[in-house]
């Protein structure tokens, strides 16, 4: 693709390429073009989606239909539960859980004959109806894709398709404005940082702008680390160009000419898509010197992180780029004053950056009209846990938890009862049922003891033990603490030990007091955000699920039946018929009894695996 030197040339390129998306966008085209998009996100990729594309391409070639039909990978469609996803245009038929072996049939029926392959369509679990279009699927009905606007629409490895969406026109527009005007527009939009803390992006830029220095840096924080979260990864895999354009706009606003993307090495696909996108952006003149003849220079380098959770903290991240130990530093000075190599630096999260081009494209007022009073725009969540529709969802701020979990998420798996939603990862908290109707924004989540975080949302059912959940998060923190300050390094370890004691039946009343007291000190005195928020999962579960803690401590009982050391499997004499099934299945041979006689479990040998209970057809094995 030739270098684009002026805004006029960019608009010409747009005119030239915009037709590429017509079939996909349902814009009537005279010919009989068809487009097959196959999800190329990590989840679908792992389920052989690349083979699906190859298979389609083979058949297209075999039939000599290359002129009329195209098959391509795309970014994530979000419905990971049902992946790999294949979407066929112009009809927009949405196929789920497609295997490479299904391709010939799809090709034959859908592509050649225009007949839907019903067995591969999504079935609404309540209505038991097949749905051919994604718009009709509940998972998508309440979603509004802003940050994810191009994911599942364009081929992330083709800059032409990005340009066809109007890509880089925001940059062109921004370059005709003064940096102060750019910042003013950003402030007006109300965009707040999507990495967790929700600091207003425009104000962050303004701080960095006000610190005068010849050199400044823009860093894209792509060190996504919350357990189960993959929002940023999906954006980079599906639409790296938006992130690049967002960085360039930020750089122009603050006066930087160099940017870094700090991304974890565990995201190889995202890294490779990003590399391709940077290369393409350079080739077409959107990165480099004198961009669009504005005199603005900007280029981006990638820095790979080694997967330390704490490196998502901006000062730790900066240390890591500098080649130093990835541990947080004292603030002040803030990065906007003295960041990377002592130079004013802004660190913006991937999702924040992906929002930026569209804000300048559609205007601050448009963005400001989305969401709630204090939280504008949309938020991407990685919905996971005991929910039917696991996947990536983007909703306007103000959507309620209930809408996300029940309408979009399709409710709780196996019709179990909802217990809690965990948001904000290890820094967040567990939200109980009574707050399901809370509209989601930064403030409301904080007020109920959780936080927005970067967008992880894990749904828990009555089969989850909240003490054990708290213990899990604490285990994660103890593993991921950088070890610098005492409250986080030692305090969290002590909290983990107490939680372990409680889940293993050694807890006592004082432990509950000690947990709270330690949590206060850790939150009050830890150096960085990781430590300061580390006790949140414990505090919120203690606040809303104290009965579970008390059951563990007072009655040595785990109400959810999760904490193995507190479980006891017994055989009810009145129900056991002596079929021997349990004894034959027991992996440690601790069940004894003659045929047709009552069986008994040797409690000293039992490892509480539960095999006997699943094998017993007479409900004779009971768990207490």
């Amino acid at each position: 693709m030739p270098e684009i030197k002026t805004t006029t040339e960019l608009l010409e390129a747009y005119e030239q390429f915009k037709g590429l998306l017509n079939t996909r966008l349902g814009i009537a085209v005279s010919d009989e073009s068809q487009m097959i998009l196959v999800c190329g996100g990590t989840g679908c990729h792992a389920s052989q989606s690349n083979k699906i594309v190859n298979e389609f391409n083979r058949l297209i070639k075999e039939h000599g239909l290359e002129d009329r039909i195209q098959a391509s990978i795309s970014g994530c469609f979000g419905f990971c539960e049902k992946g790999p996803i294949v979407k066929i245009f112009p009809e927009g038929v949405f196929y789920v859980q497609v295997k490479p072996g299904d391709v010939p049939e799809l090709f034959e029926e859908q592509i050649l004959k225009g007949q839907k392959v019903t067995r591969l369509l999504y079935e609404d679990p309540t209505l038991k109806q097949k749905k051919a279009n994604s718009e009709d699927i509940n998972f998508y009905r309440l979603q509004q894709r802003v940050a994810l606007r191009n994911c599942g629409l364009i081929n992330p490895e083709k800059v032409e398709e990005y340009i066809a969406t109007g890509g880089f026109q925001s940059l062109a527009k921004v370059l005709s404005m003064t940096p102060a005007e750019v910042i003013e527009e950003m402030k007006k939009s109300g965009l707040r940082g999507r990495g967790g803390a929700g600091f207003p992006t425009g104000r962050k830029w303004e701080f960095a702008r006000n610190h005068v220095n010849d050199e400044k840096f823009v860093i894209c924080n792509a060190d996504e680390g919350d357990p189960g979260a993959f929002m940023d990864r999906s954006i980079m895999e599906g639409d790296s160009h938006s992130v690049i354009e967002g960085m360039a706009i930020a750089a122009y606003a603050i006066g930087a000419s160099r940017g870094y993307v700090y991304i974890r090495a565990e995201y190889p696909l995202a890294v490779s898509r990003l590399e391709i996108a940077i290369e393409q952006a350079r080739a077409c003149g959107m990165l480099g010197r004198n961009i669009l003849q504005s005199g603005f220079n900007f280029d981006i380098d990638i820095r790979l992180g080694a997967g330390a959770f704490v490196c998502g903290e901006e000062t730790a991240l900066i240390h890591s780029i500098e080649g130093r130990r990835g541990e947080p530093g004292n603030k002040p000075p803030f990065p906007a004053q003295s960041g990377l190599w002592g130079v004013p630096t802004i660190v913006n999260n991937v999702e924040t950056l992906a929002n930026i081009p569209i804000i300048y494209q559609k205007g601050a007022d448009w963005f400001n009209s989305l969401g709630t009073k204090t939280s504008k725009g949309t938020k991407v969540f990685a919905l996971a846990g005991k929910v039917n529709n696991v996947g990536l969802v983007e909703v306007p701020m103000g959507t309620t938890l209930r809408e996300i979990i029940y309408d979009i998420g399709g409710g709780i798996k196996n019709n179990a009862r909802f217990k809690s939603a965990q948001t904000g990862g290890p820094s967040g908290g567990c939200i109980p049922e009574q707050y399901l109707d809370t509209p989601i924004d930064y403030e409301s989540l904080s007020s109920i003891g959780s936080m927005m975080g970067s967008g992880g949302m894990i749904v828990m059912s009555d089969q989850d033990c909240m003490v054990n959940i708290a213990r899990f998060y604490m285990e994660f923190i103890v593993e991921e603490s950088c070890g610098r300050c005492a409250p986080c390094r030692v305090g969290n370890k002590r909290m983990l030990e107490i939680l372990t004691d409680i889940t293993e039946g050694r807890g006592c009343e004082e432990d509950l007091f000690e947990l709270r007291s330690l949590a206060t000190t850790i939150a009050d005195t830890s150096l960085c955000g990781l430590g300061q928020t580390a006790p949140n999962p414990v505090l919120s579960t203690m606040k809303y699920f104290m009965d579970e803690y008390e059951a563990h401590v007072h009655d040595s009982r785990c109400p959810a039946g999760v904490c193995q050391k507190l479980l006891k499997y017994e055989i009810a004499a009145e129900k056991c018929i002596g079929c021997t099934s349990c004894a034959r299945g027991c992996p440690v041979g601790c069940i004894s009894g003659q045929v047709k006689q009552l069986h008994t479990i040797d409690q000293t040998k039992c490892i509480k695996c539960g095999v006997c209970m699943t094998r017993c057809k007479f409900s004779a094995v009971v768990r207490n």
Partner: protein
Amino acid sequence: MKKVNLTIDGQHVSVPEGTTILDAARKLHLDIPTLCYLKLEKVNYLNSVASCRICVVEVEGRNNLPPACATPVMEGMQVTTNSRRVLTSRRKNLELIISNHPFDCLVCSKSTDCELQSLVWEFGINTQRYKGERSTHPIDKSSGALKRDPSKCIMCRRCETMCNDVQTVGALTAFGRGFRTVVAPAEMMPIAQSNCTYCGQCVSVCPTAALTGVGYIHETWTALFNPKKHVVVQVAPAVRVAIGEEFGMPVGQIVTGKLVAGLRRLGFSAVFDTTFGADLTIVEEGKEIMERLEKNENLPILTSCCPGWINFLNCHFPKLRYMVSTCKSPQQMTGAMVKTYYAKKMGIDPRDIVVVSVMPCIAKKYESALPSEQTYGIRDVDLVLTTRELAKMFKEGSVDLRHMPEEEFDSPLGQSTGAGVIFGSTGGVLEAALRTVYEKATGKELTDVNFTSIRGLQASREASIDLNGRTVRVVAVSGLGNTRKILEKIESGEEKYDVIEIMACPGGCVNGGGQPYAAERDDVIEQRIRGLYHIDRNQTLRVSHHNPAIQAVYQEFLGEAGSEIAHEILHVEHLMED
């Protein structure tokens, strides 16, 4: 500078912009407790990693409790240093720190010198609130000089700041993550396989016993109690102005005579003075300096008395090794002379002699064990004790230094000059060398032997001396970070010198890693240096080659300076062991 107004515990204070809450509070005599924080202004050392969270305070309008040591003041700030929330948090953090520390205070080498122990005592903590897993790591004595006991590390990072920022050695870094994090050489390798110079400055700042010297008290007693061994001791100059501190005497007090008496009480057969070796070094090195100046080659000549510096040279500036003097250090020269000259004179088999030296230094332990530091296959120095270790031996051996009589060193290796004594301070070796070189080169006697321009605690002090019409440019530098700066300038050709004295420890040996621990170290260094120059000033003989014992040694044994035998015994290629 702009002033900032704030209130701390209700008291108003006005301080320059950029001041920390801690310093502002100290101005009001509010003594906020600290643990990891350490500032040594004179040596440019500041550790404000704020890792212990003991100095936390409450600041109105802030949600959390910031550390006073690392939080700059702001206009209108309202700080509370002793609210219930603050005191509870501090106590809790201290309780957490000790919960991951071995409770072996009774048998810990740092007991009563331990800052953690003191703080626990000050806080009145008398129970172990948290009992849980403790991180344990093997003890590392691989170097024979520096002992690492990482289980006692409290992650204050003082050593790291010293090693990386002040000394620029970079041997220590935090390693690992979470609860198991510990300060260690790269990849947790034994310290002997790192680029550690054993300068021991980390030992000086370690608040606990995580970093100490490898002890040789037991071995010394064993030698003293062995009737077959002739055990002699030598004492470095810096010891005599420091060991008094261990007995509650004023800082910098000169206790030379009492020290000699004490050593005799412990049972040493002869008490020698390392300053004798210093004078000998000056005569040998003086000769070397003059030769190189005359030929105008291999300049500048770099001094070789300090093994920490020699290790630094080997690891960081190997290309400059040809510049270093081939002279052994005064410790090794004294040892070598004991095992040759003295042994012969006394008719004792050198293999039956044990030379113990008392040094302000950790690196001397390493130096004494180097295979190159031997004469005719016999170690010059067998055991090296630090000043601190000797104080312990005194206390164990019923010697109360305060009440010892004043006694003289034994001859022949006990006589010295003021020039030998000032070796214990930065600039001292160079000054001593200039006194001798000037007289020998010009044939004139110095009317004023004081070269005051090269004294002091500044990073480096230089002077230009006219030697028979040739201007000789000299510089004295202490601290390895300062050394790096000078050597980089020499490597790049930016600066040209003829003679450079280098000491690894900021301030020289008086501030060595083996000296008594001192809280207010900035003042202590100066006081000890003052003591050494006081001795020098009151000495009749102040130029090394005027020392009659030295003259006798050359007459009876060595011939002349730089002779073949002198080279065999007193010179060495200074190469670090791989």
